[in-house]
């Protein structure tokens, strides 16, 4: 199992970056390099636009950790998490993930910074952040755009899948990297 996961991780990016330009050039006669440069221009703005969101959230999270408030919040749930040998440090990420995209991204960055990217916490945090989207934001944007007020079971389904994704991320990482 570990070998399979390692292979997928190692091959996904090389496979994509070879296949796409090759297919584009040979089958569709796309001027690949010029097209690449044209599209790449958007990347800078995308990254820069994240700055205010990330600064705002990382200030709050950094303060929360430094003041001891994070420790206080986690002390209560730690015994329960220890029972399943889950690091309780990832709990706030699970709570933030469906509510705020910038907040959970900032929290993931904070966990990676504090515990290291290759620690179990760092790997679990990366997997949680990458595996689901911000349910509340998606709901607001999509239903807000067409004036839906009664959302029926949509929120419940979204939150349920977030919970499943959160637990799946933890147990998959514990199994693969443990």
């Amino acid at each position: 199992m570990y070998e399979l996961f390692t292979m997928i991780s190692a091959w996904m990016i090389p496979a994509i970056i070879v296949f796409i330009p090759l297919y584009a050039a040979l089958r569709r006669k796309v001027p690949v390099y010029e097209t690449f440069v044209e599209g790449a221009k958007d990347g800078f703005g995308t990254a820069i636009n994240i700055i205010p969101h990330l600064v705002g959230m990382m200030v709050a999270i950094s303060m929360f950790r430094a003041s001891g408030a994070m420790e206080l919040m986690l002390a209560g749930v730690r015994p329960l998490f220890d029972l399943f040998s889950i690091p309780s440090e990832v709990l706030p990420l699970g709570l933030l993930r469906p509510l705020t995209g910038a907040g959970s991204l900032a929290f993931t960055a904070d966990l990676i910074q504090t515990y290291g990217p290759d620690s179990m916490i760092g790997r679990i945090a990366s997997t949680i952040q990458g595996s689901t989207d911000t349910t509340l934001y998606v709901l607001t944007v999509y239903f807000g755009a067409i004036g839906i007020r009664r959302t029926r079971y949509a929120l419940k389904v979204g939150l349920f899948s977030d919970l499943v994704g959160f637990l799946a991320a933890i147990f998959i990482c514990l199994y693969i990297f443990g």
Partner: protein
Amino acid sequence: MVNWIWLFMIVVSVVVAAFTGKMDTVTQAAFDGAKSGVTVSFGLISIMVFWLGMMRIAEDAGLLKTLARLLGPLVRKLFPDIPPNHPAIGYIMSNLSANLFGLGNAATPMGIKAMQELQKLNPDSTTATPAMCTLLALNTSSITLVPTTLIAIRMNYNSANPAEIIGTTLAATFIATSAAILADRWYRRKAAPPANFDSNFKLNKKSLNNSATAAGGDSLV
């Protein structure tokens, strides 16, 4: 919601710091946090520039459309109540394929267009239809092939193998999406009278072959 979470963290931090006598540390932490925010964002530039360049090639080569067409049968199965030749189907397929490539900026407008098309089929314009709920469920769990942002952050903090989380992320996202689809199915069956649901489903299956050409009619720009 976001406003309250943000306010909560800042206020609680200062209150707790007042009790623990860590006020200096907290002030320092605020500035450190701001600095990290900028560092992390700058760390994203390299990967974003590279990935969006690659994705433009994929777009120009029509790969997103091809992928959308491949998703056709699955989409029709998940949305039995949309008429097979309805434009909503095309938008949904574009939305899902953009999500797969991690192109949030392209996925969102497609998703909104799909919602607008679904709204035309809606008898009550303020209440969500089952199809809308399904589209939302797929988007909130969002299957992504390569979590580029995370790889960039891990790279920034000197990970020995930034990409090693691709496999675990794919597995977790697959499970989350399956859970979303199953929960959505369950609520659908609960909400609609079963006989009606069944006949709709069969009707759609029959017309599946006729509508194969209607797939991916809308371009992703």
